[in-house]
């Protein structure tokens, strides 16, 4: 099993370290705004054969093919959402660096909020407890600049 996964990796590796394919890939954009849109879009899409790179920066053959696909779709007038959906239909959500909000990713998208609310509760509780305690007189309002 390990040997085979090494073989698979080797095959994919042939794609990732080609001497010729390059991320630098001038395409005939209509204008700079279109180029910027292309750059932003390809930065959000994942190169599946790479070790965590996006389509914009990857030298892999597959990345170049997919970039051209994105370009063709942009020329055909498709929106960003349509292009992303096109790729997701073929490669699954894995191809998006911006994980979609769906039941499987609720923990991901709302976990931090939950932690924030829980932590905020603790902070509020702590501050109130401390603020209720009798304040000694030396915490006076004059600041002699020694308050360090």
């Amino acid at each position, binding site marked *: *099993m*390990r040997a*085979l*996964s090494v*073989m*698979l*990796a*080797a*095959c*994919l590796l*042939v*794609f990732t370290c080609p001497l010729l394919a390059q991320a630098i890939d001038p395409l005939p954009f209509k204008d700079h705004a279109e180029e910027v849109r292309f750059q932003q879009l390809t930065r959000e899409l994942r190169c*599946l*054969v790479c070790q965590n790179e996006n389509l914009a920066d990857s030298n892999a*053959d*597959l990345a170049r*093919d*997919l970039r051209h*696909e994105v370009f063709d779709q942009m020329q055909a007038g498709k929106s960003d959402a349509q292009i992303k959906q096109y790729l*997701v*239909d*073929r*490669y*699954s959500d*894995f191809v998006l660096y911006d994980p979609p909000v769906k039941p499987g990713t609720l923990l991901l998208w709302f976990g931090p909020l939950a932690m924030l609310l829980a932590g905020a509760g603790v902070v509020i509780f702590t501050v109130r407890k401390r603020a209720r305690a009798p304040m000694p007189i030396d915490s006076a309002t004059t600041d002699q600049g020694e308050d360090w």
Partner: protein
Amino acid sequence: MSRLIPFFGFLLLVALFGFGIWWNTQHDQREVPSPLINKPVPSYALPMLDDPSHTVTRDAMLGKPYLINVFGSWCIACGEEHPVLMTQGKNIGVPLVGYNYKDTPENAKAWLSQHGNPYDMIIVDAEGRTAIDFGVYGAPESFLVDAKGVIRYKHIGPLTDQVIANELKPAIAALGREMP
């Protein structure tokens, strides 16, 4: 008691990592499950390797199940898989269709004449454009298509005797049971 929350939270994390290490020994991290399972095979029109003037289309292939095997002469793992296809190709019970991916006909033919040709038919996708519709991202990959043109099973990586026995053949058998 609440002071022990970090400790228990950490234990969960350790469990997660232990799972991760184990999972890694069972799976290749780079395997991406295909969203095309139980969806219609993408429409394609690709020339045959032996007869470039003859184009094979999806519709022409309807009516019988078949196994598409994506390969290329440049692909090392395909070389590993090849002997298995040579021995088992006739036994699986469905036609074996070679899908020559990002290759030149000359290299492909040379490779096949050197290693043998297990395929009933070979179609050529030199640019890899159609392969994107299949969600191909490397080679070898194998797709089992049923008689109605629906993809029922995909295997990423070389087919082995084990995979054929434990996964592919049962999938083909399941197709057989559906036939009226």
